[in-house]
């Protein structure tokens, strides 16, 4: 019996050794395998807007890294409980890095991240981080500043319309940056804002744009997701700016350009850092300089000198010589909020809840 027991223990030890060897070899196989990256999208990939911009970047990463990377995506995932299920599924199925691309995924991402400490997570537009959860966003307001410069040079009525979704800092920041750009070249121009209380309602966005056109706006900008405002501008024969991605398909003549997200370089870097093991949880907020924010191709109707001016301003922002919110920045009452020689801090930018001089009307609370 004793003999037998011993041999049993030996067998166990042997088996354990084999298992360990198998495990080790499996580990080394994993190392040679492509890095797996998952993406969770809030909308359909063909929305010509937010989700489209993320999926374009996913394809860019695949193009750049070839068979060294394997990507999976799940689209139209509602924020909330459904998101948690999808994120967990992606983590379970062996993804090394998961991009969760909507603000409402913040808490589900953190919850799942806790259960899968070895998986890395990158959450777009959030503010909560963990050891394996980083956040990223782009300084789209830099692009909006440039569209403001174009609008300032192109407007004849000196009234520019802005279709807003909800009065949250992200949107107010865009309006203010746009106005700063506008007034830097045309101090007489003003911005009228209409809020539609929706991120996506093409019909309502269109009506909002038409209302603004009716009240004298000859250029329309938007911080909503549908091409409704572009369609309105095209129908009424005025200019408009797209958002998220190039929306010129919806109004070739009206579409001046669009402030777009360009996540490709951001995603590529994040994936590479996971591959070489250098990934750490960071808070990335990049703009024109990092390439995360870009302008869509400019409408040929924009005069050459304006194109040149935009290029100069863009370069100045990239070089750090120009900041859309460099002092003096005044609020609507004319009070100086950022003194000359200073720029607004990132912290203040993130919580911006007042209009700069040049925006008409009151900011709804």
């Amino acid at each position, binding site marked *: 019996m004793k003999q037998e027991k011993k041999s049993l223990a030996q067998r166990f030890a042997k088996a354990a050794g084999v298992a360990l060897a198998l495990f080790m070899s499996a580990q080394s196989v994993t190392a040679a395998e492509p890095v797996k990256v998952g993406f969770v999208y809030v909308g359909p990939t063909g929305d010509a807007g937010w989700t489209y911009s993320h999926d374009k970047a996913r394809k860019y990463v695949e193009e750049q890294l070839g068979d060294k990377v394997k990507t999976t995506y799940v689209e139209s995932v509602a924020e909330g409980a459904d998101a948690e299920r999808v994120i967990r599924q992606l983590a379970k199925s062996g993804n090394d890095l998961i991009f969760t691309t909507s603000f409402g995924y913040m808490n589900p991402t953190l919850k799942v991240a806790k259960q899968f400490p070895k998986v890395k997570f990158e959450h777009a537009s959030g503010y909560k981080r963990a050891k394996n959860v980083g956040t990223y966003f782009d300084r789209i307001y830099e692009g909006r500043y440039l569209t403001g410069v174009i609008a300032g040079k192109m407007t004849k009525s000196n009234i520019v319309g802005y279709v807003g979704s909800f009065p949250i800092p992200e949107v107010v920041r865009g309006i203010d940056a746009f106005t700063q750009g506008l007034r830097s070249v045309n101090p007489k121009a003003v911005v009228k804002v*209409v*809020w539609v209380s*929706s991120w*996506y309602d093409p*019909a309502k966005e269109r009506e909002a744009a038409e209302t*603004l056109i009716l*009240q004298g706006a000859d250029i329309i900008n938007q911080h909503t997701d549908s091409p409704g405002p572009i369609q309105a501008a095209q129908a009424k024969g005025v200019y408009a700016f797209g958002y998220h991605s190039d929306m010129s398909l919806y109004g070739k003549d009206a579409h001046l350009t669009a402030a777009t997200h360009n996540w490709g370089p951001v995603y590529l870097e994040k994936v590479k850092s996971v591959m070489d093991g250098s990934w750490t949880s960071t808070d990335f907020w990049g703009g024109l300089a990092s390439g995360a924010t870009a302008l869509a191709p400019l409408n040929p109707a924009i005069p050459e000198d304006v194109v040149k001016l935009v290029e100069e301003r863009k370069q100045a922002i990239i070089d750090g010589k120009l900041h859309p919110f460099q002092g003096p920045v005044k609020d609507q009452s004319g009070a100086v909020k950022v003194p000359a020689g200073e720029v607004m801090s990132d912290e203040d930018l993130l919580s911006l809840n007042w209009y700069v001089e040049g925006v008409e009307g009151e900011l709804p609370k």
Partner: protein
Amino acid sequence: MDYDLIVNILYATVRTGTPLILVALGELVCEKSGVLNLGQEGMMLMGAVIGFIAALETGNLWLGVTFAMAAGLMMSLLFGFIALNLSANQVATGLALTIFGTGLSAFVGSDYVGTPLVGIEPWHIPLLSDIPFVGRILFSHDPLVYLSFGLFVGVYLFLNRSHAGLALKAVGESPQSAKATGLPVFKIRYLAVMFGGAMAGLAGAYLSLAYTPLWAENMTAGRGWIALALVVFASWKAERVLLGAYLFGAFSIMHLVAQGLGFSVSPNLLAIMPYLATIVVLVMLSSDKARVKLYAPVSLGKPFHPAD
């Protein structure tokens, strides 16, 4: 406010009210027969997506409109089968239809999201559109708006002046009595449900082919629900449906115009109004006394089996 602004507000009001009128007239006829179909949103979305795809693939916008109506009709047949043939709970079936339509339309249309289409252009009616004021407000729209005028007149006459309309109402009030007088209750209810489906499909087509010619998931943005509330507010009267839809349109346009003029209104508060009102009405409807006061069809939502 100047003349131009007023004319434009009223013009936009008509356009905003049109999809609501189309769905609400369909639902009105359906409810008058005693059938409550909460699947408007789903049927609209199917109409919008199928209409868009058909118009894009065939290059014929009117074929798109036809397909949209057919899509709405097919959806309503599905509802009819479950709620009428199988006598399932109408509220539950209608809700399921909305969820199903939302999902199916997203699935069917996923390849068409972000595809541009030249939509139905406005058609200025000769002579009529030259009338000052009224001409610009009523007769400078796209043909689907004119169709909504015609459909309103049709439904109004049908319900108030025709024998068939009387039969429909009788079925909605008391299917048992209607059957006793020899009316084909089941057939009438089916036809009413189908009319509601086709109208919802047409409303969807108005959004995806004329108003904002594009397809995007959930592009109806709750208009089906607002139309349902409208029917109740209108206390099941066609003329009040028309008025209510334009009133709602005017409200949502004024809310945008007021902001542009610099009045400070809370956009969120205005945005929730229609939904809040819907809840209030639905709560009121749950009391029998209130139902009578609101002139609701007495047998609304109650299944009737052909064998009864």
